[in-house]
């Protein structure tokens, strides 16, 4: 028995295997090189590498596969058992074909370190300049952007670019459910088929109860990734009082806290909801850090006419220590009449937070305006 996983974060499958006590060898296909359009798929493959059954019924496997003798094919493709030669693949890009550039980019993502993801992204861009209508290329470029976002080499716009590339891929092949799920795992609840990673908490508890240490995850599943599907948009109550309606709190223009946003759309319905991800990073250059003794961080969303949000005001609770400098993130969902929009819509939102500059430095209460841009699908 063996497996191939089709996930952005493969270490989550390690945790899953540990939880279920499965010990087969597993290979990782985050780039969807197999071109699988949906999972799960089960294949019975003979000793020569030939597929003999596709999604077999368990009761048929013994008779029709295990107990059958198969003829050796006249020829077999050569076995490759080493990682690709990056230098040779780079040299091969001189052929100037999209395929050569893509093969090199794939190898950079899979076999070079996270410091080469920027090179992979440029290489995919080059391939796309030659073959713009390639769904696989758009998808794999998205994978590379998200991998860089999750790495020490991340750039603020990487998550949004990943989502935009996955959306471009899905536009070209809407029947590709691996690509669709890659967006939906970060997307709004109205678009979720199921909660993607809600099993992680249970898995960790049960593994620990067995006396084992759960496999650590490089990226913790976020709110969207554990959220349950909804059939109706959960609009927020309208009675919440805006914290700074006249904009009187002094502004942080992004020097103390860097804020990143990404909007993940519904994959199916043009006017359905979007999931907004907001990340707050204290600026290490100024030794900025949170002041947790003064009060909680608050995020407020103002809405144009006709728009709804699931939470007007989000409060981020402070950790117990008096100061800290962790990255903080929130998520919320918006829904509005996108089909009536002739251009992007900006939702005026802002964050209020207590932040200090430098060690033993000045601590202050600041507001940072965070415009959230929602683009109608045809403008992406």
């Amino acid at each position: 028995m063996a497996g191939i996983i089709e996930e952005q974060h493969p270490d989550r499958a390690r945790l899953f295997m540990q939880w279920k006590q499965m010990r087969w060898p597993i290979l990782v296909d985050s780039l969807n090189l197999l071109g699988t359009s949906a999972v799960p798929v089960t294949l019975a493959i003979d000793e020569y590498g030939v597929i003999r059954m596709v999604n077999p019924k368990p009761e048929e496997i013994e008779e029709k596969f295990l107990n059958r003798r198969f003829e050796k094919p006249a020829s077999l493709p050569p076995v490759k058992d080493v990682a690709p030669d990056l230098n040779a693949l780079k040299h091969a890009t001189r052929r100037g074909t999209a395929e050569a550039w893509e093969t090199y980019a794939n190898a950079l993502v899979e076999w070079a370190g996270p410091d080469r993801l920027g090179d992979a992204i440029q290489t995919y861009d080059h391939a796309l300049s030659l073959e713009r209508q390639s769904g696989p290329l758009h998808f794999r470029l998205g994978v590379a952007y998200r991998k860089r976002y999750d790495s020490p080499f991340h750039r603020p716009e990487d998550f949004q670019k990943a989502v935009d590339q996955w959306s471009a891929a899905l536009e070209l092949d809407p029947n590709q459910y691996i690509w669709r799920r890659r967006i939906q795992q970060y997307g709004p609840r109205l678009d979720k088929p199921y909660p993607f990673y809600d099993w992680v908490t249970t898995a960790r508890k049960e593994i620990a109860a067995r006396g084992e240490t759960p496999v650590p995850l490089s990226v913790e599943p976020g709110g969207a990734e554990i959220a349950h599907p909804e059939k109706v948009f959960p609009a927020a109550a309208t009675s919440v009082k805006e914290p700074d309606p006249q904009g009187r709190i002094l502004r942080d223009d992004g020097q103390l806290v860097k804020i990143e946003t990404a909007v993940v759309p519904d994959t199916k319905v043009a006017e359905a909801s979007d999931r907004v991800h907001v990340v707050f990073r204290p600026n290490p250059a100024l030794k900025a850090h949170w002041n947790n003794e003064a009060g909680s961080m608050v995020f407020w969303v103002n809405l144009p006419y006709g728009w709804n949000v699931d939470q007007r005001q989000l409060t981020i609770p402070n950790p117990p220590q008096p100061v800290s400098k962790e990255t903080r993130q929130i998520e919320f969902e918006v829904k509005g009449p996108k089909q009536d929009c002739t251009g992007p819509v900006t939702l005026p939102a802002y964050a209020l937070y207590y932040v200090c500059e430098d060690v033993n430095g000045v601590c202050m209460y600041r507001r940072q305006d965070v415009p959230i841009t929602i683009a109608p699908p045809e403008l992406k």
Partner: protein
Amino acid sequence: MSARGAQGDTAPRPDSVEFHEGETFPTTVFPSLDGGRPGSVADFRGKKLILHIFASW
């Protein structure tokens, strides 16, 4: 299998469009989940193999 495999996915069950009886499975080399060493389905030649292509969701 996926964590949802037993519960069913809303995606259409593949027949599949990508894999067919009688075809040789690709010899693509992938990183292994355990340590990142290169591996492929071809490593299992000489043995019959049940291969699950899945996701933990």
